[in-house]
């Protein structure tokens, strides 16, 4: 059985936990360093990135997580989670794990009135298109040579990417009943040989 930790400091961690369980994994909530033991991977949910990074510091999770990620621990960040994974942020961002070689701009589409949903073609998931929900979402502005872009908006903006055992999406697969992205994380990122 594969056990996935879901960072449960703030945000929509319950939806991720339920999606992991629908996808055949076991989910465990992570609030303190001890909760990291025995995990095969971690999901950083959507939420407010500034809130989550501050709580990571006060909970003593930032340093242990940086070390784990440095050793190749699988991590998937959605929206706020993508911001926490990024090496490069716009001036408003607070550096957190600095693990993934992507440049990320927060609130890239504007305020809540500009939040949207759209169907995306994502080759690694196959057909049909994936219904993606963007909420005050960030975008990927730059990608390093090790990074593979998994999905783009119609205008070419990258919104999902993988680098080794790190996965990032600007949108929220946990808010839809479609479990393909969670299964992709379990089967092709966490359990990868």
């Amino acid at each position: 059985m594969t056990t996935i930790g879901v960072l449960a400091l703030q945000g929509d961690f319950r939806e991720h936990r339920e999606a992991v369980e629908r996808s055949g994994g076991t989910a465990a909530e992570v609030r303190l360093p001890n909760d990291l033991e025995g995990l095969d991977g971690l999901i950083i949910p959507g939420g407010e990135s500034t809130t989550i990074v501050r709580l990571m510091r006060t909970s003593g999770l930032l340093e242990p997580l940086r070390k784990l990620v440095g050793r190749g621990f699988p991590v998937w960040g959605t929206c706020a989670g993508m911001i926490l994974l990024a090496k490069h942020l716009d001036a408003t961002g607070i550096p957190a794990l600095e693990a993934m070689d992507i440049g990320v701009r927060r609130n890239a589409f504007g305020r809540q009135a500009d939040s949207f949903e759209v169907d995306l073609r994502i080759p690694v998931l196959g057909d049909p298109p994936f219904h993606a929900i963007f909420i005050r979402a960030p975008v990927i502005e730059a990608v390093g040579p090790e990074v593979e872009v998994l999905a783009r908006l119609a205008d070419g903006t990258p919104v999902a990417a993988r680098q080794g055992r790190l996965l990032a999406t600007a949108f929220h697969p946990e808010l839809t009943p479609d479990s393909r992205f969670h299964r992709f994380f379990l089967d092709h990122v966490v359990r990868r040989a």
Partner: protein
Amino acid sequence: MEKGTWTVKVGLAQMLKGGVIMDVVTPDHAKIAEEAGACAVMALERVPADIRAAGGVARMADPTVIEAIKQAVTIPVMAKCRIGHFVEAQILEALGVDYIDESEVLTPADEEHHIYKHAFTVPFVCGCRDLGEALRRIGEGAAMIRTKGEAGTGNVVEAVRHARAVLGAIRRLQGLPPDELMAEAKNLRAPYELVVEVERTGRLPVVNFAAGGIATPADAALMMQLGVDGIFVGSGIFKSADPAARARAIVQATTHFKDATILAEVSRGLGEAMTGLDVRSMKPEELLATRGW
């Protein structure tokens, strides 16, 4: 590409879960709140305790105040309009706030009708005292609910009463046979389809925060243990002796709400909490929670 859908309205509230939304009246307050870990701020001209003290008609804040607070932080900014005042709501939408609170803390503009919230792109949060009131507001388009409590009192008793009323009613609905749900909708004075949905899922169809009287880390954790999704703190932070420390402590208490060791640690040395009011000694016309229906 579709904007302003029910999914993205409810979705922003889902991103706020497990967090603390703080009332602020200046850009400096907003920065203190953001640095303490608030997941959003409510931009106001006065906190509820001062609205109470000032008396008279309380209205939407001056757009200058809201604009200045929007410039100061990167987290979502909410603002309040009067119950039923759909033009204040149109103005707040034009200002680009992220959420509108149709709030009993301001003086109602319409005692019969709340705003038809489905007509807006911006999402709304509304107060409630029981399950029927929550479902009536959701029926009108509220994409987030908060229990009302009694704002500006620093007394958590009404917040507890309202959260227990909502969550207890949801538990009692579970397992009712289908032929009793219409009568239950009639008793609750709530839309039938929403009653059916709550019976089936065991939860409200939108995120439910607690508000009105939360003043300490223990108050926040109490509401979380009762089963709400997050916390609004109004006067409790900026009417206390050390707002930054209290704000940080309430944020940590909301995350670690089941861990009494951490709650003890973050409750230490916060200085004076806001002076509270005994709700039982207040006159009926002084109560804000009875505004709206």
